[in-house]
């Protein structure tokens, strides 16, 4: 099946920060993602409650 997947700029909020990773909830039921700290770009130290944004589309199984 052919899809037209277009990344959308989605806002979100940091839920949890550990010494290994960060957990983020995305606005509008897009889910929660957990990524290593190196995947996050920030001018300041990460804190719970900070607003983030990320370009995201759907996950397609190939």
């Amino acid at each position: 099946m052919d899809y037209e997947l277009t990344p959308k700029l989605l806002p979100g909020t940091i839920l949890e920060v550990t010494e290994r990773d960060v957990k983020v909830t995305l606005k509008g039921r897009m889910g929660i993602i957990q990524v290593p700290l190196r995947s996050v770009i920030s001018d300041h130290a990460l804190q719970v409650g900070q607003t983030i944004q990320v370009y995201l589309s759907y996950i397609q199984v190939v």
Partner: protein
Amino acid sequence: MSITFETAKQHQNDPAVLCCLRTKGTIISASDLEDPSIFPDLEESGLLNIPEHGLTIGQVLGATLERDADSMTPLTPELVSHISENQMDELESEKITTSPNTGEDPTHETQVIRFNIDKLVGQIELPPGLNVNALPFATTASKKAEDKVIRTLTQRAYPVDQVCVGAETSFQDKVLTIREALCEESLKADPLVKNVELDIIRPEDRHIYSNTIMDVIPIATKVEGILGEGVTHVMNGVIVVLTGVDEKGIQVHEFGSCEGYLDEKIRFGRPGSPDSEDIMIRVNVTVQENTGMERRGPFAAHKACDSIIQEIRDVLKDAPADASTDQKVFRDWKKSGKPRVILVKEIMGQGAMHDNVLLPSEPAGVIGGRRNVDLGNVPVVLSPNEVRDGGIHALTCIGPATKEVTRHYFREPLVNLMAEDEEINLAGVVFIGSPQVNDEKSYVSARLGALAEALDVEGAIVTTEGFGNNHIDFAGNIEQIGRRGIKVVGVSFCAYQGQLVVGNKYMDAMVELNKDPEGFENEILADSTICPTDAERALIMLKTKMAGVPIEPANRKWSQEVIDANEQLMS
């Protein structure tokens, strides 16, 4: 990618651009041309620049390419020869054939007018004195089609001014009392339920924190007959709000939950929401830890809540008819002579919370119903009255703004509008689940198409709650209906965040449900669900399409202006 002759015909006035490398001397056909529907994207990205003097598809078909040209080359008069001004018309005319009269008697041939009729609707009037016995068809006296009532549902409304907790459950003089011990007893509904609390929230006290809202449930009960017919008692001015969390404090709808202050997290007045003056009975259920993401956890919470509501239903059954302040009568009709249409409601069927109970024993109840996931998500037909009598108990997907809760189905604007409309015959409301994987989606969509064909309908409106991979079967459902020659209109939240990821040629009449200024699932309960104005837009669009009036192509991106303009047209 090259196009077909049919696509070329649709786009005969659009620019002609080569899809692939073509050599000098090529006689240009549709298979040499690129699909014009992707030109806006190509132009936006700088890959294509269409000159002002470029030729159209209609002009270049049958023309000769004068030199080698690469893909994505717009065709101009310098590049091609033997250009036709009306190529498409010529090609079209080749399809028209006439058959001479082959009658054996040449003298008789001059006395007969013979013509073929593909389809005839209406009536023919013949002059008096004509010998009707010589006509090649039988004449019948005109018979006036009569509408017939199939079943009647009476809903008696009982206003509630005050709700309190007491020693016994009772309902008298507009005061509902709920037995205090009910919460403790509701734990027996399912071992996964670990705690149940109940409180009464009056309209002026809504600035109160709450766990995520799992459902909004009307209080209604059967007094006579079965679901969809007979008599139902309904409480007005009071609504049950089910909220949920697990033992570890994780919201049952962790992905996009709507916990927070109730006055900020609910769009009051939507078909599925509490109304502005409603008293809310909040039932907060705590389920066993880590079961919030499995089917059994949220379903246990619904069962516990339903056991509480059932005791209220039992006292509502005894309310005297003369204490009712309002009475509504709903009828399921068989309208002869009106075009048959169906409403297709796509509901979630991917698993936990993406599930619904169909046809419970009590209105908006749980017990006695079957879940669409267990039924394999295949289409199930309900009569309009069965839907309006609480035939769907939503276990409810997790997008607060776009999910359809139980109360939404109880007062579904499209069901009400289509059932009461004088110009159509609503043959039924089809509920079809949205399974998780694509081969299952294709399976149930194909069954929907077969059902629509068997019901012999002329039109259909397909709606879906939520967004995500359910948009794949939304497109599939529309395609399966549309390819059978049935006119179809789609209704969904898409906007910015829920943009469709697949499409087909039958998705040319779509109604947007978004109410968020930025086009997001804004996590406010029921905000972007079907409202009466959306339902009106959808039905007018269906009637327009069925009448054969062309519908303008949609904008490439979501635009609120289109919705505003359409609403302006209706007013």
